[in-house]
């Protein structure tokens, strides 16, 4: 079927398959997970193989995608916005090497932090790396942009960044596909200097990257992703990415005749923007995320012509909505209902029967006896241990930080220094921190809450399943202090005893708390029924 109802994330996946990718590389992260899952579901055994298994983290994913590009084939690498922090090293340097096979980097931003620790705007990264950025407004445009991005990547010999917000990634609409192309053949790069970033080569490559910039601007000037809807009057809007939808919703509803410049491709089309801004005296800058362009325009022109997130026309933080644009365009009506006071908030919580629950019960039992109660936490379902009834987690910062922060706290004198980390997070970014602790003989207890899956994002494979004992032993943790427990109510006393012994041990200990995620268990038993 040529027309399909697809999530924005799925439109990316379908477009990448139709663009002839030979591989997708990713670590799960909301709101980007569905891209890779769609590809994993779609692969047909009779078709050319597309490599799609989960990577251990975003950095390994990015580097593998770059390797595939070196081999002359097309590859897709996807992550959530904070994942790009993990992959920032290869990302920044891949703009210096450049690419051979098309390499498209999809970064899913999460304005309003629905499932994230911050709302960083990936367009800043794209500009930092000086590569082309695409920012779609609709699911169809998402599909079209990914198809175009692979061609552009090969033409410019640069990675291309596609930035998508949660709202588009997790919203469905009908998408028309275009004719698929076949995969590139294996034709590895023979340009040696290009890929070896010794200073002499890197300087030359960096110069080349700078020389490509005017060409990139020229392409943006004529890009149909950057276009003007005519209107009249002094007022105008420059709308970036998904903000365009909200602007158009308000313009059509209230029959406003305001000119709109829609931007979907960067670097900015300078001439187009100059002509547009000279014609209008009151310009609203509508962008999802940080006021990246607004800041730029204000400092360029140094006048009050531009309104947006910086002057309060739109809120400084959080995702945009039609209501916020109504207000910014001064058509808001005030007859809206409010939420009745009787409505209580309903935050997410650990599932009934979840292994983390029994683990937290055991930890709280043991911690009760210590004057200092500090449990360093990490990223995953078990972060919910910060909320009642457990309220036992002291920190949640970034992937793997539980171990290294607990190490630093132990160095500072906190006793016991205890952290809890999920199995998938441990292999993502925890192992190197554990090695630091072993080498430094820090008095530290690492609890790996191993439910055999990447649960928070919906149950993807976890990289170290079945090998945690061996991994910890290999990193140098003494065998006698790698303890296995099964977090179940009936084991509470026994588990608390083991935890206490290791909390009191003056060295590095690891407790592997192992019980399958009840959600993946349910899915498995359902599959077994059919």
């Amino acid at each position, binding site marked *: 079927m040529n027309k399909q109802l697809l999530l924005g994330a799925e439109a990316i996946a379908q477009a990448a398959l139709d663009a002839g990718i030979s591989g997708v590389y990713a670590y799960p992260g909301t709101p980007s997970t569905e891209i890779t899952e769609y590809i994993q579901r779609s692969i047909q055994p009779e078709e050319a193989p597309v490599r799609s298994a989960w990577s251990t983290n975003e950095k390994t994913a990015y580097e593998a995608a770059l390797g595939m590009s070196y081999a002359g084939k097309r590859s897709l690498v996807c992550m959530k916005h904070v994942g790009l922090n993990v992959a920032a090293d290869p990302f920044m340097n891949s703009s210096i090497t450049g690419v051979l096979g098309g390499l498209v980097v999809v970064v899913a931003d999460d304005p309003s932090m629905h499932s994230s620790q911050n709302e960083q705007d990936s367009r800043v990264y794209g500009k930092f790396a000086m590569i082309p950025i695409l920012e779609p407004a609709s699911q169809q445009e998402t599909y079209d942009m990914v198809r175009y991005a692979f061609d552009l990547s090969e033409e410019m010999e640069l990675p291309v960044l596609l930035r998508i917000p949660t709202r588009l990634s997790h919203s469905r*609409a009908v998408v028309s596909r275009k004719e698929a192309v076949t995969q590139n053949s294996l034709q590895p790069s023979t340009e040696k200097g290009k890929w070896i970033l010794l200073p002499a080569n890197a300087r030359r490559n960096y110069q080349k990257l700078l020389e490509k910039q005017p060409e990139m601007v020229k392409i943006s000037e004529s890009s149909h992703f950057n276009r003007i809807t005519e209107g009249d009057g002094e007022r105008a809007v420059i709308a970036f990415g998904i903000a365009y939808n909200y602007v*158009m919703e308000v313009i059509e509803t209230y029959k406003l005749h305001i000119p709109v410049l829609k931007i979907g491709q960067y670097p900015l089309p300078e001439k187009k923007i100059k002509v547009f801004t000279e014609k209008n005296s009151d310009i609203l800058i509508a962008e999802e995320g940080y006021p990246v362009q607004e800041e730029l325009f204000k400092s360029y022109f140094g006048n009050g012509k531009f309104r947006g997130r910086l002057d309060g026309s739109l809120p400084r933080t959080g995702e945009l*909505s039609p209501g916020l644009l109504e207000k910014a365009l001064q058509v808001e009506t005030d007859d809206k*209902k409010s939420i009745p006071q*009787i409505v*209580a908030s309903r935050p*997410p919580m650990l599932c009934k029967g979840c292994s983390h629950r029994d683990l937290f019960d055991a930890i709280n039992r043991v911690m009760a006896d210590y004057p200092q109660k500090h449990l360093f936490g990490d990223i995953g*379902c078990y972060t919910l241990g910060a909320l009642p009834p457990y309220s036992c987690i002291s920190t949640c910062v970034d992937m793997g930080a539980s171990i290294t922060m607990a190490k630093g706290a132990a160095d500072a004198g906190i006793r016991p220094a205890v952290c809890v980390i999920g199995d998938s997070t441990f292999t993502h970014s925890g192992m190197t921190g554990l090695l630091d602790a072993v080498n430094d003989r820090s008095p530290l207890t690492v609890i790996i809450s191993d439910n055999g899956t990447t649960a928070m994002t919906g149950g993807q494979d976890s990289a170290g399943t079945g090998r945690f004992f061996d991994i910890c032993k290999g990193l140098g943790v003494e065998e006698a202090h790698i303890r296995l427990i099964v977090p179940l109510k009936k084991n509470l006393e026994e588990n608390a005893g083991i935890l206490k012994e290791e909390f009191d041990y003056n060295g590095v200990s690891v407790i592997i708390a192992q019980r399958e995620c009840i959600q993946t268990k349910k899915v498995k038993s359902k599959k077994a029924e059919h």
Partner: protein
Amino acid sequence: MQRNIIIAGVGGQGILTIASIIDLAAMNLGLNVKQAEVHGMSQRGGAVESHLRISSEEIWSDLIPLGKADLILSIEPMESLRYLPFLAPEGIIVTATEPYDNISDYPDRSELLHTIRHSGSHLLVDAGTIAREAGSAKVYNVVMLGAASPYLGMAQEEIEKAIEAFFSHKGDEIVSMNLKAFRLGRDNRTK
């Protein structure tokens, strides 16, 4: 033709199934669809909603503007009120009456129903009883789809066709149980 529908509930209650069936019916009629969903952390027992927009014209925003929802279809009574700012003056709330009480400060039930009754047009549905009559508590959400079906702007047959298509891979028995749930929900509009 244009319909803006908020589907509300608690993570795990099956609101995406309802959305998928309506999507399917709308697509079969050649209408445009946009459907924003909640994935991620909130799916773990938190409040979730889907913004579903159907139109014969182009749909711009993935989110329904405040005050523009024709229907709030809620699988849980308190959740129906969380999205009240979206309801149009002439819009209606169709909600199940059985609380999903997984929080410590869940409001008093009669006060809750009283508030819903004073929040505009409404239809309260004892979906649990109807679902059991249809054959399984699992079809709770399809009962609610049936109760809301007169407000979807599409013919009943089109929605029934979509139900058949949606559940067909699960076998005839599941299809007929869901059709029964849909019809009982639609006909049981007494409260």
